[in-house]
Each structure stands twice: as C-alpha cells, then as structure tokens.
C-alpha cells in the first residue's frame, strides 16, 4: 500500500497553464463527430450528386427555384432556432403565416395600399408572438401546449378575416421581388434567399458571439441557474416569441406575393416542416445545444434534397420517408458514434490500467 507523499502535488489545471492543449487533430475529430458538421457534409454531398447525376439540377433557374421554394420555412427557422435553443418551441408559425397572408389579402381586397398593409401585418405578427410569449412566460404554461392552442386560434382567425376567398392580383412590382426569376444578378440567389442569408449571418452572430446568445444557451440548458445568474429569462423568451411571430408574419407576406394568392389555409403544416428542418440541423429540442450553421444546413438540405428527388421522379411518399429517416438519423448517428468511441476509450483505458 502506498503511503502518503508529503508534498501536495499541484492539482492538474490549477496552474491554469497546465491545461492539456487541444490539438488541431483532436479538435478536428471532435468536430467531425458532431451532427451539425455531418449535415453540412451531407448537404454538400447531395449537392454534388445532384450536379453530377441530374440534368436540369443546376440549370434553367432550377437552383433559384429550389432555394426560393423554401424561403418562408428558412426565414421562420431562424428565430425558431433561437427559441428552441432557449428550450421553447412555437408550433403556431404556420398558422401565423396563414393569418398574415389572409389579413394581407383581406386588407388588399378592401382597397388598402400595400405599403400600409405590410406594417399592419407585421404588427399583428408581433402581437401574436406577444400572446404566445405572455402565456408562456407570465402565465407559466408549457410552450408546446400554448402554441398548439394558438395554432388553432391563428388559423381560425385567418378563416375569420378571409373566409373561403382567395385574393389575387397583388402588385407585380412587389411580387417580382419574391419571384424565383428575379435573382441577384449573376447568381441563383433570389431576394428572399438573400434576405435569409443576411438574417442568418446576423442570427449566427447573435447566437454565438453575444451575451444574449450565451444567455439563451444557459436558459435552454438550465433555466433556474440562468435566472439565479441575473439573466432576464422571461424577457428574453418573450422577445424570442415576438421575433418568431414577426418573422412568421413576414414570411406570410413573402408567401402571399410569391404565390400571388392570399388564402386562409396558406402554410398549413409548415410548423412541422420548420421544426424538422432545425432538428435535422442538430438543434437539440431540450434546449441549450446546437449551432446555427447546423440549422441552416438542415433547412437547405431539406430544400435541395426535395428538389433533387422530385427531379428524379421520386414520388412524394418516398420523400416523406426519406425526411423521416433523416430525422431519426440526425439523433441516432451522434449517439452511435458516441457509444462506439466510448467503448473504444473504455477498452483503451482498461488496457492502460492493466499495464500500469
């Protein structure tokens, strides 16, 4: 039996500098093991496969179309990512999109100027977000429950304002902004997508480099601890719900212009699409984990994959299955990789222990 050595060995790390360095190799390895990196890789792979195998994938404005086609989902997904990181969820986004579209249609039909309609609709989006946020932060209800309720409510309001009408003939000078034929000169980037890229960069910056973003991770991971650290948990959550409402309403306008049709059922089922896109990107539904890059990759992956499969006449139901499989893979793969490395590590550790 070893007896006590009489000098205290400094605790590892206590000196601060003794911290084992993260080698480039190690960092690369831990990065490679993360799902969000895998999604980016998958996205690139799908893209390359598309270029190589499918005529018409890269040509004739198809890419512009493919990306433009997911612009509403993508726009909503940005604030939703923040919300999910903070441990909440908003299932009412599709309905808010529909409500915004219906309201825009009703006002347009009543002869209002489009320039007036847009701010009004955005304010309504903010109010919708406020209601969600208020019920969650002040009344203290779980967001899943609240937003299932507002999902029904907002969709219902949409049909109240517009009934069974479909309003058309929106001003072409605005509609052109959302068309997949109008792109940033020389690229396949349509304006909604350009806006998405700008907002995504801003969001990434906010989430990963600011104190606000840092707080969101803390709130999502352990709300109590964040609150005890003086973070304004409720206010931040409220803000996120408002942002989500705002962008959903904005997406409603984009949708209305893009399809030239305002209807109460626009965007039905979008909530699950948005959620799947960001979950696919490795944002943890339990909150506190994920990167915006992953979420963006998840969104784009869904868009590109869908386009590619449709081009190859893969029927919709198979695409649905593929989406489902990807979702399952998105959570299962990291777990399997983790389990395998852990097992390998354990074997290495016991081998090391055996030799000492």
């Amino acid at each position, binding site marked *: *039996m*070893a*007896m*006590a*050595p*009489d*000098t*205290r*060995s400094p*605790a*590892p*790390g*206590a*000196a*601060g500098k003794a*911290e*084992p360095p*993260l080698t480039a190799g190690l960092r690369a390895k831990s990065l490679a093991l993360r799902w969000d990196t895998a999604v980016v890789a998958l996205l690139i792979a799908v893209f390359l496969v598309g270029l190589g195998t499918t005529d018409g994938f890269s040509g004739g404005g198809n890419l512009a179309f493919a990306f433009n086609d997911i612009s509403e989902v993508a726009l909503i997904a940005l604030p939703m990512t923040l919300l999910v990181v903070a441990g909440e969820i908003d299932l009412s986004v599709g309905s808010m999109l529909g409500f915004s579209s219906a309201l825009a249609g009703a006002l347009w039909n009543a002869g209002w100027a489009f320039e007036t309609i847009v701010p009004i609709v955005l304010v309504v989006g903010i109010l919708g977000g406020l209601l969600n946020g208020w019920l969650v932060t002040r009344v203290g209800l779980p967001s899943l429950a609240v937003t299932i309720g507002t999902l029904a409510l907002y969709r219902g309001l949409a049909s109240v304002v517009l009934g069974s009408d479909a309003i058309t003939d929106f001003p072409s000078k605005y509609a052109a902004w959302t068309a997949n034929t109008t792109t940033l000169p020389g690229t396949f980037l349509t304006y909604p997508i350009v806006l998405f890229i700008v907002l995504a960069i801003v969001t990434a910056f906010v989430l990963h*480099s*600011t*104190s*606000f*973003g*840092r*707080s969101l*991770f*803390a709130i999502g*991971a*352990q709300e*109590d*601890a*964040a*609150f*005890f*650290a*003086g*973070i*304004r948990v409720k206010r931040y959550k409220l803000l996120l719900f408002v942002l989500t409402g705002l962008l959903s309403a904005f997406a409603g306008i984009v949708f209305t212009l893009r399809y030239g049709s305002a209807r109460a059922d626009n965007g039905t089922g979008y909530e699950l699409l948005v959620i799947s896109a960001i979950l696919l990107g490795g944002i943890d539904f339990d909150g*506190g*984990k994920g990167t915006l890059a992953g979420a963006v990759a998840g969104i784009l992956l869904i868009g590109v994959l869908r386009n590619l499969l449709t081009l190859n006449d893969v029927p919709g139901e198979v695409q649905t299955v593929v989406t489902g499989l990807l979702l399952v893979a998105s959570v299962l793969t990291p777990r399997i990789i983790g389990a395998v490395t852990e097992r390998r*590590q*354990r074997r290495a*550790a*016991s081998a*090391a*222990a*055996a030799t*000492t």
Partner: protein
Amino acid sequence: MNQPETGGAPVLALRDVSKSFGAVRALRDVSLQLFPGEVHALAGENGAGKSTLIKTLAGVHRPDSGEVLLDGRPVTFAGPADARDAGIAVIYQEPTLFPDLSVAENIFMGRQPRRGLGRIDRAAVRSTTEDLLKRLGVALDPDRLARGLSIADQQIVEIAKALSFDARVLIMDEPTAALTGSETARLFSVVRALEAEGAAVLFISHRLEEIFRLCARVTTLRDGRFVSSEPLEGLTEDDLVRRMVGRDLGELYPKQKAKLGETALTVRRLTREGVFHDVSFEVKRGEIVALAGLVGAGRSEVAQAVFGVDRADAGDVEVAGRKLPKGSPTAAMEAGLALVPEDRRQRGLVMAMSIERNIGLTGLGKLGRGGLVRRALEHGRAADWAVRLQLKYNRLADPVGVLSGGNQQKVVLAKWLATLPAVLIVDEPTRGIDVGTKAEVHRLLSSLAADGLAVLMISSDLPEVLGMADRVLVMHEGRLTAEIPRAEATEESVMAAATGRERAAA
C-alpha cells in the same frame, strides 16, 4: 467501537479498481474492504474519487479494470438494480428524489409492498414510511410531494429510503452535509443500531469530527489513488488531514479582524407570507454576518427574497442606501449584490455548460463591448478564478457537470466572486467542500471582508458559524429570534435561539 473480527470476510470489497472518464483518471488501483458490523469512513479531498468509488460499488459505474467482490466472489453489477438486489443501499451525494411523487412513494419506488394480484399496498407504504420517519425523528408527512422539500428534508428522505432496505451494506455519500446537529445525531444513533445488527456501513463526510465520532476505520484517497486504510483509533485529525491533502493545514477558521465600514445591506421588515415574517437586519462593509437556524427555518428563503429571485410580500431591501426594486435579481446584481445559492445543481450552475461559460455567465455584460462576448476575456476570467480557488479541473472548456461536488461548489463561488460584489450572500458556502478547500474558502471570505466586502453567510455548520461570523443572526420558524455578537456566540446560545428556547437562555 467495533473492530472487524479478524476472521470475518468482507461483505463487499473492491480490488485494484480503476476508472477513467475520458482523460480524467478518477480511480487508480483502489482497493477497499467493508466488513459486517463496521462503520467505515472514506476520506479525501474534493475530486479524490470518493463518489466515483461508491458509484462503482453501487453498480452505477462499471470499473475499467479490477473487480467488485461480494462475499469474496467477483460480481458484475449491470446497474444499480443489481447492487440493490445484492443488499447494497446507497445515499448519493446529490439527492435523487422524484419531485412529483409523495415522500412515501419516493422511499419505496420499485419496492412497494404488494397485496394480491401484485397491487401496491398503499396503506403499508404509508405506515412503514411513518415508522421510518419517526425513527429518524422528523415529522415529515409521508403523503406530501417531494417537490419543494428543503435540501435537508430531501436528504432525510434519502436516508429513510436507504434505511428501508434493511440492507447488508449501507453506503452514504455526505449524508450530513445538509443536516444540522440534532438530525445528524439522530442519524448516527440509527447507524449505530444498524452496525450492531451487523450491517456494513461506508460513510463519507468532510466533517472530520463526524468521522471520528462514528467510524472505526478509515480509507483515504488522494487524486484517485489509494493512500491508506487503517483503524481510526490512535489517529488524530491532523494525521487524517495529512493523509488526505498530503501536507499540514493551517488555522481552520482564519478569521481576520476587519474594520467595519458603513452599512452595505439593509433589510427592513421583509415578509413572505407563510415562509418568513418581519425580518430586519443590516450588514456592514467588512462584516461577516452569519444567519443560523435549524433546517427549514427559512434562511434560504430570506436570502432569495433579498436577492430578488423570490418576491417578498412586504418590506424592502437597500444596498448602500439604494432601495432595490422587488423581484429583480438583475437589478440586485447591478447594485452589487451576489447570491451563492444552496442548490448548486439546479440553481448555481448550468451543468451542461463549460466551466468558463458558467463563470462568465454572471458577467456577460463585462466580457466585451456592445453585447459581444470575447472568448479570450471569458477564458481569462475563468482561469484567474480557477487558480485563486484552486479549482481542480481538466480543461476549462469541459462541462461543469463532470467536476466533483466540491469543485462544482468552487465554480459557483468563482462565478459570483468574479462579479466583485459589494454584498455577498452565501448559502451554505462550504457544503460538501473538503477541509483544505473549506479553509481556503474561509480565508477567502475573510480577506474579502477585510477588503470591505459585506458578507451574509447562511450556514448549518455551527463551528463555521462560530468561527467566521462577526455577528450571528438566528432564525426560528420564519422569524429572527436573536442577534448574537461574536463574543457571546456559543454553541449553546445559538442553538437555544434556533430551537426557540432563547427566552429561557436570555
């Protein structure tokens, strides 16, 4: 004290067990033997590997190498259920209750007595729980939900749970950390009874006097390595400390005499109905005021109401003469208040976040300009405080959840000290901290006070209260019952006030 019979075989033993978590080698070739009818202490600094060891015994961790022996035969526990079935009862360091279930159900989960058709016999569950709680001398209602129990009550439920097993081996990881004297005494008498019945008990505590009071043998760990295993008889506290930390310790309660400055914290007629009433006191700069009392007296609630995480129904709080708005921790922090909460896992730390981010969390506004967070500043802040508090860690980017309990407590302290507060409220600052670190924490508090910090310290550790405080406030059932200056503070006077006997004493 019982010595293990020399011929008796150990009921439970570890042979050359090693366990690593990634790069951290928590246990290296550790052996331990538990004999029937023996109370065995496990000692070591924070992070020495004590909890890891008992989790290995309990089947939570599987050893990388070496083996667990039950009655001399090697066994492999696939999970806690296997260990439980083998007659091993464990009280983990952190309470593991089901908040939505009643106390009785918590105690008997998965082992409820059954009636015909395999149905649970509710009446039996309830009455057995009542008996157990009576045995521990607490008047907890078996039907009350575990949610909202104070840490101490949670610990008592844990103890009741472990006792309900009638186990051959009882393992307790710092069961007394949250308890006060009387409850501890009651626990010890129960443990002695078990000992007499022939159970083997493994006991972990950072309070050395408890080890000496209760145990016959002690096994010491240091940095995951086995140091010694020997009878306590003939050992002094200093010997034990030397085994644990590898050197001699200085003075235990290094209280510096501080000059009292102007009033930093004023609490006036603070009331939260049903919890505490009409609490008024002041803390001056440079002063350490202890808030003592029995478990559940409402001390933590007062602290939380002062800091603003709970809303007080009446009364107000002033920091340096400025009144704080009600219910806003953010405003309290801006005014220079800091609260180290008692429940570090839920409230003190974001367990999944890295050490540096946890420490940075209280200073997000100061880690860069315009809402930006500069990682270098964040890392620097964390590294600085890690050194000052002698934190034991692998990498600052590791999640704080992998640290040992005591080291987690240091991170909470670091997180709050880094805000350079004017008034520091610490709720059980040294709970679960080893003697060495405890002395460091005390030295730190003391020197911070000497530099003009006002400290309000809530503690259930009476020696700590007496050793550190300039003034002792005592609470009993939600009211301040006494204010005792340092000179008059004795174990008797504080306990008298805490149990409501203070009138007789005064």
